[in-house]
């Protein structure tokens, strides 16, 4: 397990409405919850449904207070649309990790829409959450006919070469 698990881990997932930002943060939050952590997730609904910028904050650890990630304190920034990197870059702490779709060989995915879940696979290597909790959360968040594509996408992300 990761040594960072003794403090709160801050993750921001960002992109555009319709790209699966909230789906990804739901899966992440559920996996952290199932792993036994205190966890909070904050996102803003409403106008974001109409193709605008969407951001979702997830924090987990032994005890979490604020549901929002403080600017300059995110350990990970997962961005699903390249043009959404700049508007969100200031959330990362010095030395924080930016994860973008270019980390994934999209042609290897069974379904290109699963890029959000594949990026969770990459992220999962850095977090103190066991694979079975991720897999259960993925199953909980998709209809059954999408399970295998998304579980496969997660595994592909998890096994990607470090860059």
């Amino acid at each position, binding site marked *: 397990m990761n040594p960072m698990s003794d403090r709160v881990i801050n993750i921001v997932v960002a992109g555009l409405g319709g790209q*699966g930002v*909230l789906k990804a943060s739901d899966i992440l939050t559920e996996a952290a919850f199932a792993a036994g952590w205190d*966890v909070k997730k904050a996102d803003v609904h409403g*106008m974001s449904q*109409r193709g605008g910028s969407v951001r979702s904050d997830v924090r987990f650890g032994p005890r*979490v207070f604020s*549901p929002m990630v403080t600017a300059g304190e995110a350990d990970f920034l997962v961005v699903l649309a390249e043009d959404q990197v700049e508007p969100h870059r200031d959330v990362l702490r010095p030395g924080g990790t930016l994860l973008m779709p270019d980390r994934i060989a999209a042609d290897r995915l069974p379904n290109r829409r699963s890029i959000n879940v594949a990026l969770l696979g990459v992220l999962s290597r850095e977090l103190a959450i066991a694979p079975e909790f991720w897999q259960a959360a993925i199953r909980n968040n998709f209809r059954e006919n999408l399970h295998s594509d998304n579980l496969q996408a997660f595994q592909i992300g998890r096994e990607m070469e470090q860059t």
Partner: protein
Amino acid sequence: MDTATKRLLLSGNEAVALAALDYGVALGTGYPGTPSTEILEYLSAHGGRAQWAPNEKVALEVGLGVAMASAAVLVTMKHVGLNVAADPLFTAAYTGTSGSLVIVSADDPGMASSQNEQDNRRFAVAAAVPMLEPADAQESYDFTLLALELSARWHLPFILRTTTRVCHSKTVVYLLPRERNVLVPHFEHDIRSRVMIPSNARPAHRRLRQKLAELAQWNEESGPNELVAGQSRLGIVTSGVNFMHVREAAPDASVLKLGLTYPLPLEKIRRFAASVDRCLVIEEGDPYLVEQLRTAGIAVEGKPEMYRFGELNVTRMRRILVGDTSPEPAALPGKPPTLCQGCPHRIVFGVLKKLDCIVAGDIGCYSLGALPPWEAMDSLVCMGASIGMGLGLRHALPADEARRVVSVLGDSTFVHSGIPGLVEMAYNPPHGGHVVLILDNGTTAMTGLQEHPGTGRTLDHAATGKIVFEDLIRSLGIPNVTVIDPVAAPEEFEQALVESLASDALSVIITRRTCLLAAGKIRQYEQCSPLATDPHPLPLSQRERGVDSPSPLPEGEGS
């Protein structure tokens, strides 16, 4: 942990609904509005009885009736909804309740999706209705239960004031096993308490103030207020989600977190303030607590005025703690939302722009017509305002400009509060007539595809009575009522609008085309529960197209 304790991950809205279910409410009612909408949907999905009212005023009146029958009820709305419900609210405090009545006011500091950031804590004071403020999903559950219990005990309506970050944040909730109350609704005559003619209302007002004084005393001794012991150098008084930011920004400070914030436990706060060197009040929005405490002679420090605007967060808390009033870094602009590709509203706004109309607008997805590339909406104030404001423009503008004025509103907004505007139009018609466009996409799209009285389906999508707009409007004596599918017949729509603008008569054009996002779901609902009678079905061709329309959002993406 007790093995009987359940551990759940819930949003604040889900927790409110679950508490209402666990208490045994007879009904949940309200009108959709971000960030409150999911409460009633969750209540319904988990076996509770929940229904959408045409607007918040009606919802609260229904709720007051339920509470008069000695049952328990939850009434939900966004902050501006309480403006609509203000009329019954203020006098409901006088009549009081026989059962339990809890009103959820979901405020939106920072205006994630609202037209203003009014602070509804002011409503609690103005209407003399007690108020609880939860900080997370756990407290959303606990305080909803408590509000229902206190309402039954003091025979008063209670406001549960949440905010966007409480409503929509998911946090861990621990639930103890609990027996659901078995309430037996019944009626007892009590004319003097409930018929607010002046001779009854005068003693009712005195009773209300007496109850509030008793509740304030209870709040001092037993209220849901939490003291976090810390250093005596700095003490912070706060409430709601701000408590969470405070604990992070000032982990060593002493903190008094208030749960029941009207009426306030002033003596408890006075003692706390006296126990610390510096007593700072941290609150989002208006200086509500600061003003109340200073009026009570408690010396407290408030936040600089610049932090009245927008949400608070840990960064802003840190700045407040050190009195930093230097300009905050501007947030980099994200991508603004826009009307979906294929949205029927696109065609309507294209024509409004082309004809250079003066558009009195309204609240819904179509508000996006104010943004590029259309920029074809000239006002947005509150639900239903498009019609009255359009009429006012028509009355005052010179004839050549008045002729370009159009009122534009959606189907759910029309039912909510557009109908009295149409009555005004029929009663006080402008000299040059007027044109109202009802953009009927068959759903309350902006808040996430909720039903309304014009869809002919209830909150859980079962068939019910359907308000047929064109029949209703014709019954008002408005001569020109046209129904057009703007996607199937864009030229016909443009022609109808041109002719209506040229005419001195009153016209209503209903552009009827199902929302792309809703079409597939509506087909499923209709298969499960066909409408009993639909005198004005959509043209078959549209139904077929609507069914096959691709969704612009990926499958399974919840937003």
